[in-house]
């Protein structure tokens, strides 16, 4: 897992449930697309990233302490 690609408009956010440590920073930085369940794990809104949220999404991806949050071109299958 070298470089993470930058989030782009139209992509879908994904969380790696193994590495996520429920720190909740993603929900602070991108409340439009991420909520937390009662244990603090993210619940993602399944929509493609709108252009106005791309910058926020990039920041959320970069700040995640375990880099568990990624943007992916395809929705979860």
């Amino acid at each position, binding site marked *: 897992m070298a470089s993470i690609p930058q989030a782009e408009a139209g992509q879908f956010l994904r*969380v790696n449930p193994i590495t996520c440590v429920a720190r909740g920073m993603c929900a602070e930085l991108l*409340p439009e697309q*991420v*909520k937390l369940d*009662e244990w603090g794990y993210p*619940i993602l809104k399944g929509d493609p990233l709108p252009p106005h949220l791309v910058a926020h999404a990039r920041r959320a991806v970069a700040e995640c302490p375990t*880099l568990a949050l990624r943007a992916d071109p395809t929705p*979860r299958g």
Partner: protein
Amino acid sequence: MNEQVLWFAARSSGMVSLLLLTATILLGILGPLRVGSANWPRFALAGLHRNISLLTVVLLVVHAVTIALDDYVPITFADAVVPFVSQYQPFWLGLGAISFDLILALIVTSLLRPRINLRLWRSIHWLAYVSWPIALAHGIGVGTDATGPLGLIIAGLCVAAVVLAVILRIIKRDRPPIDFAPPKPAPATKPVGAARPAPEPVRRPGEFSTRTR
């Protein structure tokens, strides 16, 4: 210009560097301790951790440059980064150089964090716990002020704060909160995102069903 200006600048920037480095360590530990509230969201504390660490490096550069320019003691620019080669107090200055190198490695890997292997970043970031006591020992070993009353009070407070934080860090290891707080109905605190309401409906991806911790 008073020729002691460089000397005073070197001493005071060294002392401020210790305070900033201590603040950086404390802010870093707040992450795994899951400190955060509506008024102090975690991303803000993490940003403070990063920015104060960058300020620390600025002060360390001022510290090294002023002491190298000051010609009362034979300390060179190389002594700031190459350990144990100095003509003056090679051991204690060497500790300062090691600590500075470690801090530079911490900063560089952290700024590249999204681009490098996360394990590499993590293992280098553990060196924070090595750099701090070495920096402290350097200051006490070679510093003019560190063994004076004010210096000892500052060093004592820094040691107390870091030791306390490290103990908390060890007790409260970085596990998911489910290990500490059994599931209970919706938490009383308002989520930070409440100001920007997320549109419904929110979908829960099936990915979470694999979680067994």
